[in-house]
C-alpha cells in the first residue's frame, strides 16, 4: 500500500538529471547532423544516397517500415491488453502510448524524406488516386496518429489536474500549463462518464486501425510483382512483426525509464515476467510466419524464389539474414522461454536484440528483392549492382531514430510516466476489495 503523497512524489515529472541532459544533447547533435545531411539531399537530389534505379528503395523505406511496426505497441499493450482484461498493464500503458506517438510521427516524417520531390507533397492530397496503396498509407497514417495521440491524451487529463495542484506552489508556470491541459477536470461524475466512454471507444477503435496500418504497410510491397514481396502471407507477417517490434521496444524503454526514474516499486519483476511471456508469444508467432515465408518456397523451387532465398541463406545477404533470424528472433525466444530469462536485465538484453533485429529485418525485406528484377541488370554502372547506404542515408536515418528517442525522452520528462489517477484508483479498489474480503 503506497500512500498518496509518496505516489505523487514518485510519479510526478522531475527535472532532468545531468545524465538526462547529456542524453538530450547527444540526441540533438545527431538530429542536427541529420538535418544538415537532409538539406544537402534537397539541394543535390537523392543522388547523395546510394539508391539507384535498381535498388530504388533503401534504408529510408526500411526505416519507415520499422517505425510503422513499432507504432503498433499502442494497440497491443494498451488496447488489446485492455480488451483481454489484463490489469497488470497499468504501469506501462503510458510508456506504450508515448512510444506509439513517437513512432507514428516519425513514420510520417521518414516517408517524406524518401520522397524525391517533397515540394510537391500536397499533390498527395490534391491529386490523390484511391487505387494506389500509397494513398491508403497517406490516409491511415494521419488517422492512426490522431487516434494514438487521443489515446495518450485522454487518460492524461485527470493526471494533469493532479499535477496542476501538485506544482501550484513549487512551479507555478508548469502548474498553469498542466492546468490548461487538464481541461478543467474536476473528477465529477459527468466528466468521468464522458472520459470513460471516450477511452473505451478509442481503445476499441485503435485495434482495427492499427491492424489496418500494418496491413497497408505490407500491401505496399505485396501489391507488386517482385519476388520476395509478391506473397499472400505478407499482411499477417507484418502484423506479427509489429507485435514483436512494438513489445520489444516497450521492454527496452520500460527498463531504461524504470531505472532512470527509480520506479522499481511500480514496475516489478512480475510485470517483466508478464511482458516477457507476451513477447515470447509474439516472437513464436513471428517465427511461424517466417517459416512460411522463407522455408516453404523451397519445396517447389520456383526459379525466382529459389534464387531469392539463396541470396538470403548463403549469398550476399546471408550474414544480416542469419544475424536477424538467430540473434533477433531465435535467441530471444530461447531466453524468454525460461522464467530466469524474464527477469528485468535479461529482458533488456532480449529486448535490445529484438529491436535491432527488427530494424535489420526490414532491411532484409526491402533491399534483396530489388536486386533480383525479372530482367537481368545490364547497361548500368557496376556500383548499381550492390547497395550499402551512403553517409547521408546513415546520418538522416540516425537522426530520425534520435528524433523518435527525443520525443520519447521529452514526453517521459514532462508527463507522469505511470498513470497517477488510475494507479490510485486501482489501489483504492484493491483496498476496498481487501476490506470486503476480510
Amino acid at each position, binding site marked *: 500500500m503506497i500512500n498518496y503523497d509518496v505516489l505523487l512524489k514518485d510519479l510526478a515529472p522531475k527535472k532532468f538529471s545531468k545524465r538526462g541532459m547529456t542524453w538530450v544533447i547527444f540526441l540533438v547533435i545527431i538530429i542536427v547532423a541529420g538535418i544538415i545531411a537532409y538539406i544537402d539531399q534537397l539541394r543535390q537530389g537523392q543522388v547523395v544516397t546510394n539508391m539507384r534505379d535498381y535498388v530504388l528503395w533503401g534504408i529510408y523505406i526500411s526505416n519507415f517500415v520499422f517505425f510503422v511496426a513499432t507504432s503498433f505497441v499502442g494497440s497491443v499493450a494498451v488496447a488489446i491488453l485492455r480488451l483481454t482484461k489484463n490489469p497488470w498493464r497499468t504501469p506501462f500503458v503510458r510508456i506504450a502510448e508515448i512510444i506509439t506517438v513517437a513512432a507514428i510521427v516519425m513514420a510520417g516524417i521518414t516517408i517524406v524524406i524518401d520522397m524525391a520531390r517533397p515540394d510537391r507533397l500536397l499533390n498527395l492530397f490534391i491529386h490523390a*488516386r*484511391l*487505387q494506389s496503396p500509397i494513398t491508403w498509407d497517406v*490516409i491511415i497514417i494521419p*488517422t492512426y496518429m490522431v487516434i494514438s495521440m487521443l489515446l495518450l491524451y485522454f487518460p492524461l487529463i485527470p493526471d494533469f489536474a493532479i499535477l496542476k495542484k501538485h506544482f501550484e506552489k513549487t512551479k507555478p508556470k508548469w502548474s498553469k500549463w498542466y492546468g490548461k491541459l487538464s*481541461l*478543467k*477536470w474536476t473528477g465529477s461524475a459527468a466528466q468521468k462518464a464522458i*472520459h470513460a466512454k471516450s477511452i473505451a471507444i478509442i481503445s476499441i*477503435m485503435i485495434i482495427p486501425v492499427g491492424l489496418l496500418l500494418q496491413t497497408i504497410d505490407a500491401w505496399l510491397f505485396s501489391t507488386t510483382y517482385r519476388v520476395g514481396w509478391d506473397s499472400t502471407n505478407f499482411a499477417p507477417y507484418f502484423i506479427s512483426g509489429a507485435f514483436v517490434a512494438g513489445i520489444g521496444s516497450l521492454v527496452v524503454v520500460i527498463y531504461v525509464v524504470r531505472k532512470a526514474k527509480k520506479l522499481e516499486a511500480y514496475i516489478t519483476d512480475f510485470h517483466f515476467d508478464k511482458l516477457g511471456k507476451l513477447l515470447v508469444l509474439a516472437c513464436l508467432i513471428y517465427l511461424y510466419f517466417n517459416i512460411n515465408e522463407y522455408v516453404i518456397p523451397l519445396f517447389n523451387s520456383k526459379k525466382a524464389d529459389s534464387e531469392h532465398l539463396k541470396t538470403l541463406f548463403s549469398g550476399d545477404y546471408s550474414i544480416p539474414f542469419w544475424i536477424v533470424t538467430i540473434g533477433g528472433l531465435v535467441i530471444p525466444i530461447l531466453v524468454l522461454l525460461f522464467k530466469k530469462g524474464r527477469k528485468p536485465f535479461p529482458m533488456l538484453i532480449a529486448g535490445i536484440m529484438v529491436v535491432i533485429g527488427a530494424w535489420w529485418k526490414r532491411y532484409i525485406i526491402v533491399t534483396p528483392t530489388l536486386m533480383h528484377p525479372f530482367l537481368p541488370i545490364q547497361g548500368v554502372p557496376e556500383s548499381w549492382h550492390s547497395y550499402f547506404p551512403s553517409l547521408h542515408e546513415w546520418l538522416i536515418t540516425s537522426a530520425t531514430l534520435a528524433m523518435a528517442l527525443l520525443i520519447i525522452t521529452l514526453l517521459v520528462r514532462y508527463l507522469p510516466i505511470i498513470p497517477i489517477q488510475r494507479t490510485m484508483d486501482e489501489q483504492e479498489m484493491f483496498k476496498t476489495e481487501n476490506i470486503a474480503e476480510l
Partner: protein
Amino acid sequence: MKKLGTFHIVFLLFLGNFLAPGGFTDLYAQDAKKNSVRLKADYVKIMGGEIYVNIRATSKIDNQNIDVPNLEINVYNEYEDEEIPLGKTITDSRGKSKFVIGGLQAIKPDSTNTYNLGVSFEGNNDFKRASGSVSFKNADIKAELITKDSVNYIAATLSDTFADSLLAEKSLVIQVQRLFSPLKIGEEFNFTDENGAILVAIEDGIPGIDGNLNIEVVLDDSDDYGTVKAIVNAPIGKPIVEESSFDQRTLWSPRNKTPFFILLFTGGLIFGTWGVIIYLFTNLVRLTKS
C-alpha cells in the same frame, strides 16, 4: 631599271610577303568554302486533288548527304527557251518543299506535250547556285470499287490525257492508306492490260475507321508521267472496335474513374473512423464544459 635601290628591294620583299601563296589561297578558299547543292524535283498528281512538285535540296558535306533547309527556290516553266516564273518556295527544316501548281492550265507544254518545269536556287553565302528540272506528260487514272460475286475489286484505267490513249504494260501499285506508310494489296507488280486497265481483288478483313478504307491506285515515279495517284473510298473494311479500357472504371484509371468498390470501401472507412474521431474531440469540449 638599271639599278634597284635598297629601298626598292626592301619594298619588294615586303610586298612579296603579302603576295605569298597564303594570300591567294585565301581568296580561293572563300569561293571553295561554298558547298554545292543538288536540287531534285518530282511531279505528283492526285486525281481530283492537288498537283504539286516535291522539291528536295541536299548537299554533300564531309562526305555525307545532308538536307539543306531555308533555301529559296524559284520554280518556273520552261517554254520555248523562256523561263516563265511560277513562284517561289523555301525548303523546310528537312530540305524539302512542296510547291503546289494551281492546275495544269497554268503551265504550257512543249510541242511533244511534255510539261517542263525547272527549279533553281540563286546561291547564298554558304551554297553555290543550283538548278534542277522535271519533265512530265499528263496522265490520268480512273479508279473505282467493283463488287463481283461478293468479292471486292479495284478497277482502274491508266490513260495519257493528251493523246487520249490507254497505257498498257505499266505497273500500278494498289495500297490502303495507313498511318505511316500505305499497306500494299494485290501483287507486287500489277501491270495494266492492253486496255490500260487492271482489276485487283481486295482481301477481306482490312480494318478501317467505321469500315472505311481509302485505297490508292498509284503510278509511282514513272519516267514519262511522274507520280499519279487516284484515291478510292471503299467502305468495305472491317470496322474498328475500340478495345481501350480508358472509359471504364479500372485500377489503372485516373482518379475520376475509381472503381466503385474502392470508393465505397475507403470512403466508408474514412468517414466511419473520422466521424468517431470528431466525436471524441467534441467529447473533449464537453469535458471542459461540464
